[in-house]
């Protein structure tokens, strides 16, 4: 039985190396050894005076436009971000997600993701027609590739190299397909006239 070890028998594994040895080798080893003296113990610690808040309920931030909110909220929370209010078709999709579906429903999130894609497509289109179009060289950081990717790939095995071949297809593919469909639609409309 000498070669049978835990977990097949109940023996407690020895601490290898000892605490003293680890303390000598690793600065601070064991400084937080006492679980009950760690900052996040216990997880919930009722102490409303500890936060610096000097209100029972915060003053309400002015709602300068109809602020969308999850229907799981009983009220509009008193403070919120005001960047990028809803607009256009993407706004309609997002607004429907918030008004119609709780966070528990997949439809809620799929509508929000659809809103993201529609807004991005519109932004790309507007940018192409603007005086300040998106620049795929400076705005994607692709110029940092240089020799680094080659160097990294040669130097070590990396798990992400397994999907590198398909990444450009998955990232750029939908845009190319959408552009092609758009082109076909425009062409067929012009052809009909």
């Amino acid at each position, binding site marked *: 039985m000498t070669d049978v*070890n835990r*977990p097949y028998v109940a023996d407690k*594994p020895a601490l*290898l190396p000892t605490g003293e040895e*680890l303390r000598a080798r*690793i*600065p*601070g080893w*064991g*400084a*937080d050894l006492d*679980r009950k003296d*760690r*900052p*996040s113990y216990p997880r*919930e*610690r009722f*102490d*409303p005076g*500890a*936060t*610096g*808040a000097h209100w029972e*309920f*915060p003053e309400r931030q002015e709602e300068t436009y109809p*602020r969308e*909110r*999850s229907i799981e*909220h009983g009220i*509009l*929370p008193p*403070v*919120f*971000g*005001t960047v*990028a209010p809803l607009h256009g078709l993407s706004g309609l999709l*997002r607004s429907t997600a918030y008004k119609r579906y709780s*966070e528990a429903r*997949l439809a809620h999130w799929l509508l*929000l993701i659809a*809103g*993201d894609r529609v*807004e*991005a497509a519109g*932004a790309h289109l507007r940018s192409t027609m603007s005086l300040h179009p*998106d*620049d795929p060289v400076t*705005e994607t*950081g692709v110029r*940092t590739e240089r020799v*680094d990717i080659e160097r990294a790939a040669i*130097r*070590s*095995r*990396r*798990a*992400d190299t397994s*999907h590198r071949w*398909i990444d450009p297809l998955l*990232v750029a593919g939908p845009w190319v397909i959408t552009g092609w469909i758009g082109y076909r639609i425009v062409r067929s409309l012009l052809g009909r006239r």
Partner: protein
Amino acid sequence: MQAMVYRGPYKIRVEEKDIPRIEHPNDAIVRVVLAAICGSDLHLYHGMMPDTRIGTTFGHEFIGVVEEVGSSVQRLKRGDRVMVPFNVYCGSCYFCARGLYSNCHNVNPNATAVGGIYGYSHTTGGYDGAQAEFVRVPFADVGPQVIPDWMADEDAVLLTDALATGYFAAQLGDIVEGDTVVVFGAGPVGLYAARSAWLMGAGRVIVIDHLEYRLAKAREFAYAETVNFAELDDVVLEMKRQTDYLGADVVIDAAGAEADGSLLQQVTSAKLKLQGGSPTALNWAIDSVRKGGTVSVAGAYGPVFSAVKFGDAMNKGLTLRMNQTPVKRQWPRLFEHIQQGYFRPSDIVTHRIPLEHIADGYHLFSAKLDDCIKVLVRPGA
């Protein structure tokens, strides 16, 4: 002012934006001195987080100088040099009163399942972030803290998320003396979690990643043993072998939504967005930990479902612990540890870039080029 602006998946640029204004009596406007790019910013950059709107400025790790305060602010004044937790929180709701600052109920109209975070989509409240010259900081009397004179800027900015999160992740593991702790992911949070595991008395710390340069940093900075999973056929089996087939006592998932290691998981989540995240590291954690052990989740995942091996977790009687980090709860003890000289947070910083080149910083970090571990961004440089 100049600010990083999201233009759609994989595209960002620096634009002129209006300087934020006081919108609530307890707001402050902070001039950003130093910001960082977080691994979770990459989820936004890759279009994985629902309701990420064009025109949003990212960035939730930052320090700065108070430029202006609202009428009810008592604890800060113009000119104060402050560090700001990534959590936006009120300090007075049901959750904040119990120390769950990251779960505040008064700052995020868009979702009840997550609190408020700077520059992290409308799903976390629709706040602009700090990869900009100025940022609006709500509840200035609650979140921000004046940076101690002895603390370096680079250490302070890392305390606003990455270090606090790694330290919190180790606490969630409920480590006891002599435990074997495995950390999946040798990014900033994983490195700090591994280093923190020793503070809590771990007997053995193993860090797993597929990037050799990050594993080298884990050996040097976190005194950890390392395993490169790309060189193995089955990393879970290797963990069993290394622990006499017992499994680790505690496993920490410090990889999150874009974990590599499974082509199917990576493509269906990070690329096709059919899952809230690729739970490869989480599944490996569930399978590598011993029966009755604890899995701590520090990696961020999106709100849509992910293909997690829950049956194994149930059958093994695991404790799964997780949360966004209540940052400010961690600070007093971490300040002590840094003052004691146990470690220097900024030792993991590899890149320092001006705001105008932030697109390069995102790509370097995202594609793991040039041995990138942590990127700091300096506005106005």
